[in-house]
Structures are given as C-alpha cells and as structure tokens.
C-alpha cells in the first residue's frame, strides 16, 4: 500500500506534524464543536467530585423517579432522580468518568497489545506467526459474552479486571492490521535498504514502519474507542458490565431501559452522552487522520 515514491515523503515525516499544526488553525467548525464536547467530557471526568451535588450512590427512597427541573422537578435534582432516588446529574458525571476511563484504558491496552503481537507475528513469522494468528482467530470466533462472563465469574466484579477485559476486545484487529501492513512494508525498498544499512529491527519498526501505518492505526483507534463504550452498554444490558454500586453510561442506560416510558430521563441523558461522545470521537479522529496521512491530498 505504500509506494516507493512515498519513501521520500516518509523520510520527511515531520511535515505531517507540521501539517497538523497548520491544520489546527484552520479546522472546520464541526470539528471544533466535537473537540469542544470531548474537552468538556474529559473535564467533567477530571473534576467530578467538585461539580457533583451528590455522591453517585446516595440513595433517597422518598425522592424516587423525580422528573428534571423543567418538567415539574426541583432544582435540587436538575436532571431528575432514578429508581433509588439518586441524582441523575451526579450519576451522569461519574458515569462519564467511568466510561471514558474504561474506554480509554481498554483501547490503549488493546492497541498496545495488538500492535506488539502484530509486530511479533510479522517479524518472526514461522510458528510464532501461526500461534498468534490462531489466537486472533480464537478471539474473533469466541462470542464476547463468554469471555466477559468468565472474567466476571473468576475475578468477581473488580473494576481493574473489567478494564483488562475491555482491553481484550478488539486487540485482534490491531494485530491483524499491523501484521498485514508490516509484512508488506518490510518488503518495500526503503525498509530493505535501512536493514541493509545495519539498523536493528526495532529501529526499523518504530522509526520507519510504525509512522506509515500510524494513520491506519489511528482510524482503528477512533473506531475502537466508541466501540468500547457501546460494548460496555451491551454488557450492561446482559448484566455483565460495570456492576452496581459503580455506575457508567452503559450501566445507566441499561438499568434505565425499563423506564423509557415513565422516567425516560434516567436512560436518555446518558444515551445522549454516549451518542455525542461517539460522534465527536469519530469526527475528530477522521480529521486527525486526514491531517496526518501523508498519502492523502
């Protein structure tokens, strides 16, 4: 996929970053809006304790299912309360933090794990390659519910392990991608030339091949990050996601689905947060990819 002519552009890699900085100044309003939402979300995640009027687990059985303030509720619970009388706004903030944390770490773990295994497979070939490919196939063939269930069963509902579980989701696509692109990149003129000049394999990979496949990886990350949020929602539907009393966006939507007709605010606000975050992540990710990719006009 990378032509010989691009060896020149690859060697002039810094121009990609320069292009990014130039692009930042001239980004379209939609992208700015999305970036703003993401910044807000990250901000909320960082200062949750400061801005939440209540603790997320604070129960008040006499104030159950209160509507938001503009629909007959009180300012005390501006976005209403849920089925146990907990403040929806506070839970929303904590959920944003939890979901972003889980998705971020899960994506990072999956990307790093998958990329490393992809490199290993492409570098060593032979039986290591076959073994890693079998693992990739295994991951793709095993319905994720079983994996999720086994983690929940063996390790209980510990959050750390749940994040590790999320890291297992999607690594196989990075591995396949990296392996495929590395294999073809290895055989291109520039790579062969650099190896013959005596560079160590790791130098070849990290300084020459990785930047070329970076744009494909970034696309994958921007697709993968929201997938984690959505996966977590699906797992919560099945009761396998973030467990109470902890809360996440998927958790709120999952447990709020019973109330779509009566207390819709429990599920709709986190649902909107999910859609906005996913949308923003995708649009911003596309834009970054467009700026970084040296092969695009």
């Amino acid at each position, binding site marked *: 996929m990378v032509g010989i002519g691009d060896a020149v552009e690859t060697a002039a890699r810094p121009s990609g970053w320069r292009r990014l900085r130039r692009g930042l100044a001239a980004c379209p309003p939609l992208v700015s809006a999305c970036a703003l939402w993401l910044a807000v979300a990250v901000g909320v995640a960082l200062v949750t304790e400061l801005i939440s009027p209540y603790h997320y687990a604070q129960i008040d059985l006499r104030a159950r299912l209160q509507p938001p303030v503009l629909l007959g509720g009180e300012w005390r619970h501006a976005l209403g309360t849920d089925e146990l009388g907990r403040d929806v706004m506070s839970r929303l903030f904590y959920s944003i933090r939890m979901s972003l944390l889980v998705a971020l770490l899960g994506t990072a773990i999956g990307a790093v794990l998958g990329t490393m295994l992809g490199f290993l497979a492409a570098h060593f070939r032979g039986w290591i390659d076959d073994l890693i490919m079998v693992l990739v196939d295994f991951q793709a*063939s*095993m319905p994720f519910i079983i994996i999720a269930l086994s983690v929940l069963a*063996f390790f209980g509902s510990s959050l750390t392990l749940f994040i590790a579980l999320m890291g297992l989701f999607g690594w196989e696509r990075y591995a396949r991608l990296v392996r495929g692109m590395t294999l073809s990149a290895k*055989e291109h003129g520039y790579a062969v030339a650099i190896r013959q000049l005596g560079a160590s394999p790791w130098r070849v990979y990290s300084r020459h091949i990785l930047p070329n496949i970076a744009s494909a990886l970034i696309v994958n990350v921007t697709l993968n990050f929201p997938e984690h949020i959505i996966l977590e929602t699906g797992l919560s*539907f099945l009761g396998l996601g973030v467990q109470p009393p902890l809360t996440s966006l998927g958790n709120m939507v999952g447990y709020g689905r019973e109330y*779509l007709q009566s207390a819709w605010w429990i599920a709709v606000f986190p649902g909107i947060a999910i859609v906005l975050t996913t949308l923003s992540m995708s649009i911003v990710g596309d834009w970054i990819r467009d700026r970084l990719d040296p*092969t*695009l006009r």
Partner: protein
Amino acid sequence: MLRFLATKLLRALATVVLVVTFAFVVLRVSGDPAMLIMGAEAPPDAVAAFRTAWGLDEPLWRQYIDYFAAIAEGNLGQSMRDRRPALQIVLDRLPDTLWLMVPALLVKLLIGIPAGIYAALHRDTWVDRATMAFSVAGYSVPNFVLGLLLILLFAVNLRWLPSSGSETGWHAVLPVIVLGTAGAGILARFTRSTMLEVLGQPYVRTAVAKGVAWHRVVNWHALPNAAIPTVTVIGFMIGSLIAGAVVTESVFAWPGVGRQLVIAVSQRDLAVVQVILLLVAASMTVSNLTVDLLYGWLDPRVRTVAPKEG
C-alpha cells in the same frame, strides 16, 4: 496452493479446539449446572444425583476426554434441561436466526458500502459529513434503546408492525432495521476510509494524469483495491451470523441462536453452549478461509508464500 490450504485448515482446526476448550473449562469451573437448572431451593441429594447422572463430578480432564470421544462418535451431547439432543435444539433455531441475520447482512451491505463509497468520492462536502454523521449515529445509539424506541413507535403507537416474535415476515422488519443500521454505519465508515486510502495512491493519480475517465478510475482501479480490507470486515460479519445478535434477539423475543446462547450460558447447559460455540467457530473459520482465498484471487501479491524482494 495445497500447502497454503493445508496450513489454513490446520489453523482453523486449532482455533476450533481452542475455543471449545476455553469454554469447557470456564463454564464448568464458574458455575454448577445442577444448581442452576434445578434451582436454588433444590434438595442437596437431588443436586448430587443430577451431577452424578451427568458426569459432572468426574475430574475435569476426564470430562474433557469423554467429550471429545463422544464427538468422535457423532454424539454432541444432550441438553441438561430436557435431555433432548443438543445439536437438534440448536439446529431448530437456525432457520429463524438466518431469517433475521441474512436480511440484516444484506441491509448492511447494500446501504453501508454504497454510502461509504459515495462519501469518499465527495470528500469534505456536506454529503460526506452528513453520511458520516448518520453512520456514527447508526452505531452509537445502543441497539436495545433503538429497538425499544422503534417498538414504542411502530408497534404501540402506530400499530403498523408487531412488537415481538417471529411468525411472519413483518415481524422481522424492526429487528432487521436495528441490526442493519448499526452494521451499515460501521461498514460505511470503514469503506469510506479504505476508499480514501486507495484514492490517494500514486497509481490512481497516475491514471487520472493519463486521462482515464474518472468512473473508470473508480471502478477498475480504486474499487478492487478497496475491496480487500472490506472483504475482511464482511468476513467477520458473516462469521458472526449465527450468534451475533444476542441483544436484539432478546429485545424482540426473536427465537434465535444468540438468545439461546445466553440462556444456555446462564444455566450452564453445557452441551448446548458447546454446540453453539462449535458452530460459531466453524462458521468464523470457514468465512476467514474464504476471505483468505479471496485475497489470493484479488491481490496477486499475497499468493507468494516466500518473501521476495519488493
């Protein structure tokens, strides 16, 4: 070519065995089918009798060997809930599953791919942005929320469509919409990015510079190259045809294999789970195999086994 096939087949077999083994161990260790199927109030001697009858008190390695020995004889086990053959139970649900998943797959392909190509060809225009926004919206709304909203609108308020079950073709409309929108969104985004990569390739620029008509450039140069990674994704989608719609099937009470997997797993109905996993692993590896073969046909560079100087 034969070597190529042989290694692929061996890999496929290894995957299937690994999948079955993993599930075997995990399910047995993390839950007791006897207690789950008989209920929490069942008397302990009855639970013990159940475990003995189904061989659950044997050591794990022994159960494992017995299981594979039975498969070799063609016996895939019985459901612990009603003692009917596990294979029969799963195959009974297969037609309904396919009636849901195949139309959904068609919707994904017929909407997603053209949308992605169109967006790529009109990059950075409002068409592109709108298509991408819709695509993302398609897969970011949680599918059970979309399903419930559609039910409320079309079944309860308008009464145009049924809300659950699988009797007629009309019953499949709402679940197919739910499945199709998410998949079409994913496919659209993916196709767009692949097309953009291909359109930025030097040979495309060369073709345009040579004066080749744009539609020929797209159809004869860009699309075939973009097909390669797209085919991979489609391969994954086909592989997950059998058990990939767990949530949707649950919302619409569609009697598919995905829903059956959830029930069987939560009750540790081991034989049924293992049959489903075998089928899923087999279909995934078959579709991967097909994709690899298609690769060989689509991209001549991949056919060479030994690395060559580029």
